[in-house]
C-alpha cells in the first residue's frame, strides 16, 4: 500500500467547483483519498496545473476501420515513426497510429479514458482485441444500433420494450458501453446504393425514418437507464445546408424523459462541426453554427462534441458508407468500403485539410465558432472526431485556439487560413476565450457527466486516481498570448497518473499498463432479453454469415473489473 501526495499544485476540478486553488491531491491504492499518513510519497508540483486525467468522448481508435486504414495507408504509417525504448514499443503512424502508439500518445497528453465511438456488433471481437493491444487508457466502446435490421423491425412495430431488451442483450454480447447511431437509415439505404436526406426520408424496404429510429432508441436507452444517452451522428453529414437536419434530429426527441441521475442530457450530438453548414452547395456554403448553437443554448437535453478541423492530412473513417462515397467522388483519392451485413456500412477515404482551401478553412472556423457560441461549456466536449477532422494528437492545438483570440485573429490575418474562414462564419467577431477551468470542463468534467462516469473526470475522494499535471503555472501565465506554449504543455504532460500509477513523467512514457474495457451491463431485463433472442434467432441464422456462438464477444476478451452495472427501471 503506497500513499502519494501531489503537493501544492493549482487544481482545476470543475465537478467539485475547484477553480485554480492551490491544494494537495492525495491518492492511495489507485483511488483519490482525503488524507494520507506522513509516510506518503511526496510529488512536488508547486504552482503547476493539475486536472483530472482527460476523457475523450468520441474517437476512432480500435476496431476494423482502423485496421483497414493501416492496411491501405502504409504511407501514413511511416509518418510519426519513433524507435522502441526500454519501456515502450516502436511507434508508427500519424492519423492512424499503431495500437501501442495510440495508447502512449493519449497518455502523453494526460488522457485516461477514451471512448471508441463506433463498433459494429459483428466486429466487436476485433475491437476488443485491439483494446487489448492499446496500453495505458481505459476504453468504453459504443455499439452501433442506428441501421440494425432488428432495431428497424422493432421500431416499425413500435415495440419499445422489446427494442430495449434487444439493446440490453446486444450491449452484453458486444461488451459495449452505450448506444451509437450513425446516419440512421442512411447506411442501411447504402445497401441499395442510396442514402436518406433529412430525418423523414424512409429507408428502402423497411419504410422506417431516422426520426422513428432516434426516438425509438432514445426511449429504449432511457427505459434501461443507461449511464450515457444516445450518441448521435445525424443524417446529411458534410452536406451544405444540413443544419436544419441537425436541429430536427435533436428536437424530435425533446419530450423523452431522462432516466439517469448523473448525466443531464438525453441526446449527445457528435462531431457537430460536420453538421452545421448552411447554403446549397460547396460554392455558396456558409456557417450554420449560429442556429445550432442558439438551439443548444435554449435546450438542456442535448450535449455536443466539436469535431474541430485541425488542418492536417488525415484519414476519414465512419460507419456512414454513403457519405464516404460522396467524399471519394469529391477528392478522387483511394476509397475503402465495407458492408457489415445486417448492421451498417462503413467507408474510408484519406483527406488533406489545407488552410489554403476555402471550404476546409470554413470548416476549421465552424468548429471553433461552435465552441465559442455555446454558452454553457458543460454542453461542449473537445474532439476532432479523430482521425476524421484531424488526429487526436492535435487536441492541445485546438485548446490553444480556444484559449487565444489573438492566435485566431492572427491565423485569419496572415492567411494561415483562407479568407472564407472570416467571411463566411462569425468566428472573427467572437472574442471569447476559454480559461483553464473551461478547458477542464470540456475535456474532463463535462465528458464525465455526459457519460455518467461518476468515478472519473473529478478529484473527489473515492474516484479513481486518474490525474494529469502540466508544465504550466496558471497564476503567472497568460494562455491568450502564448498559444504555442499552451499546445506544447498540453501535448507533454509533466505527470500522467492512471489508477494511482505514474505512467508519464516529463512527457515520456515511463510505465505501460493494460487498458480496461469499460462497459455496461443492465440488470433486471434477463427474461425479456431471452424472449427477444429466441424471437430474432431465425432471422439471425438465415441472414448472418456467422453463427451466433461465434458472434458473441466471449468473456476472455475483457477483464470483468470495469463493468458499470445498471439497474433498469421499466
Amino acid at each position, binding site marked *: 500500500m503506497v500513499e502519494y501526495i501531489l503537493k501544492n499544485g493549482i487544481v482545476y476540478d470543475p465537478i467539485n467547483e475547484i477553480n485554480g486553488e492551490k491544494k494537495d491531491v492525495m491518492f492511495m491504492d489507485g483511488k483519490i483519498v482525503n488524507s494520507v499518513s506522513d509516510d506518503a510519497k511526496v510529488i512536488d508540483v508547486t504552482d503547476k496545473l493539475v486536472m483530472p486525467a482527460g476523457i475523450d468522448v468520441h474517437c476512432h481508435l480500435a476496431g476494423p476501420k482502423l485496421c483497414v486504414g493501416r492496411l491501405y495507408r*502504409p*504511407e501514413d504509417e*511511416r509518418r510519426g515513426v519513433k524507435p522502441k525504448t526500454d519501456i515502450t514499443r516502436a511507434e508508427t503512424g500519424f492519423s492512424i497510429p499503431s495500437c501501442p502508439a495510440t495508447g502512449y500518445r493519449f497518455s502523453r497528453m494526460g488522457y485516461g479514458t477514451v471512448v471508441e465511438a463506433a463498433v459494429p456488433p459483428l466486429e466487436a471481437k476485433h475491437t476488443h482485441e485491439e483494446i487489448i493491444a492499446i496500453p495505458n487508457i481505459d476504453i468504453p466502446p459504443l455499439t452501433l444500433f442506428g441501421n440494425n435490421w432488428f432495431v428497424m423491425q422493432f421500431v416499425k412495430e413500435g415495440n419499445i420494450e422489446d427494442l430495449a431488451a434487444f439493446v440490453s442483450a446486444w450491449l452484453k454480447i458486444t461488451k459495449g458501453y452505450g448506444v451509437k447511431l450513425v446516419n440512421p437509415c442512411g447506411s442501411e439505404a447504402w445497401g441499395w446504393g442510396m442514402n436518406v436526406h433529412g430525418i423523414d426520408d424512409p429507408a428502402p424496404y423497411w419504410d422506417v425514418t431516422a426520426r422513428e429510429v432516434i426516438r425509438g432508441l432514445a426511449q429504449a436507452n432511457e427505459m434501461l437507464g443507461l449511464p450515457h444517452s444516445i450518441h448521435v451522428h445525424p443524417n446529411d453529414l458534410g452536406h451544405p445546408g444540413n443544419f436544419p437536419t441537425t436541429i430536427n434530429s435533436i428536437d424530435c426527441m425533446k419530450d423523452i424523459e431522462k432516466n439517469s441521475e448523473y448525466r443531464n442530457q438525453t441526446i449527445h450530438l457528435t462531431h457537430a462541426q460536420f453538421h452545421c453548414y448552411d447554403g446549397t452547395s460547396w460554392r455558396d456554403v456558409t456557417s450554420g453554427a449560429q442556429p445550432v448553437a442558439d438551439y443548444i443554448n435554449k435546450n438542456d437535453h442535448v450535449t455536443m462534441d466539436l469535431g474541430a478541423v485541425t488542418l492536417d492530412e488525415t484519414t476519414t473513417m465512419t460507419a456512414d458508407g454513403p457519405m464516404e462515397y460522396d467524399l471519394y467522388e469529391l477528392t478522387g*483519392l*483511394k476509397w475503402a468500403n465495407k458492408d457489415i451485413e445486417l448492421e451498417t456500412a462503413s467507408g474510408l477515404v484519406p483527406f488533406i485539410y489545407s488552410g489554403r482551401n476555402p471550404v476546409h478553412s470554413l470548416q476549421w472556423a465552424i468548429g471553433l465558432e461552435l465552441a465559442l457560441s455555446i454558452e454553457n461549456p458543460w454542453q461542449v466536449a473537445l474532439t476532432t472526431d479523430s482521425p476524421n477532422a484531424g488526429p487526436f494528437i492535435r487536441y492541445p492545438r485546438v485548446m490553444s485556439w480556444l484559449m487565444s483570440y489573438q492566435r485566431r485573429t492572427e491565423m485569419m490575418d496572415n492567411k494561415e487560413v483562407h479568407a472564407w474562414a472570416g467571411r463566411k462564419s462569425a468566428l472573427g467577431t467572437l472574442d471569447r476565450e476559454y480559461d483553464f477551468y473551461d478547458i477542464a470542463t470540456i475535456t474532463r468534467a463535462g465528458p464525465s457527466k455526459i457519460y455518467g462516469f461518476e468515478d472519473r473526470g473529478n478529484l473527489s475522494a473515492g474516484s479513481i486516481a486518474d490525474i494529469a499535471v502540466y508544465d504550466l503555472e496558471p497564476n503567472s501565465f497568460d494562455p491568450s498570448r502564448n498559444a504555442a506554449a499552451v499546445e506544447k504543455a498540453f501535448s507533454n504532460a509533466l505527470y500522467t497518473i492512471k489508477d494511482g500509477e505514474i505512467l508519464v513523467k516529463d512527457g515520456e512514457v515511463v510505465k505501460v499498463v493494460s487498458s480496461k474495457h469499460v462497459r455496461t451491463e443492465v440488470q433486471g431485463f434477463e427474461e425479456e432479453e431471452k424472449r427477444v433472442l429466441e424471437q430474432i434467432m431465425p432471422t439471425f441464422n438465415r441472414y448472418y454469415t456467422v453463427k451466433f456462438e461465434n458472434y458473441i464477444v466471449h468473456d476472455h476478451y475483457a477483464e470483468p473489473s470495469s463493468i458499470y452495472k445498471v439497474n433498469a427501471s421499466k
Partner: protein
Amino acid sequence: MKQITLTPTKFSSIALEFDELIPDEIYGWSKADFEKYEVPVGNTRFPLTDYFDIEVEGEAQSPEEVQMIIDGDAGRVKYIGCKMGAGEIIVNGDADLHAGAEMEGGSLTVNGNAESYCGREMRGGEITIKGNVREYAGTSYIGEWRGMSGGKLTIHGNAGKQLADAMSGGEIHVMGNCDILAGIHMTKGFIQIDGDVTRWPGGQMKNGAIVINGRLDRLLEGFEPEGIVADPVVEGKEFTGKYIKYIGDIGVSGKGTLLLNAEKNRHHL
C-alpha cells in the same frame, strides 16, 4: 573537396542501411568519426569498420564538396543516397533497395544494377544507373499517390515493372527495355524509353508524356490515336522520325501524351 572512399571488406546477408551516410550529414566527419559510427543492420547496429575500409581525403565546408565512393559491391546496402540534398555518391557495383529515394539534390551514380524503388519519390538531383533497375523505379511509396516530382533518373539498362508510378514531375530516361505499366497514374513529367516495352504504358495517366522508341507489344484500350506526327518536340527535346500519337488514359479523362516510334510499331497502325 572531400573524398570519402568505402571499400567493402565483409559481406552481410542482412542489409545495411545507409540513409544516415549522406553528404548533408557527413561533410564534416573525419576518419575517426566514421570509425566511431555504427551502421544499422537489420534491427541493430554494428561498427561501419566491420564492413568497410574507410579512407577520407581533403576537407569540405558544405555537402556540395563531398564525393563519397563505395568502391565495390553494395548489393546488400539499402537507402544509398536516400534524402540527400547535395554532393556526389558513386557506387562501383550494385545497390540495394531505395537507392536515391526521396533525393532532393546532388548526384548518385551506380555503376552496376539497382534493386527496386530506385529514385522513389525523387524531388531533385540526378541519378544514373549504368546497369538495370528492378520494379518501381522513380515511383511513389507503397500506398502513396504522390510520386516522383523532380530531378532526372537515367537508366542505361532495363527497367522493371511500374516505372514512375504516380509521377508528377521530373524526367526518366530508360535506354534499355521496360516492363509493364510504365507511367501508371502519372500526372505530369516525361518518360523516354529507347528499348522495347512489353505492355500497358500509361495506365490511368492523367497528363505528362511518354515516348517509346522501341517496339510496344500491347497498348491499353484507354488510348485514343491522334494520327502520325513527324519530328515531335516533347518537353523541349526533339525526336526525329515519325511517331504515332495517342491521348489517354480516357478511362480517367486523362490528357497524357503517348508517342510510339511509327517504324517499329506498324502493328498498331
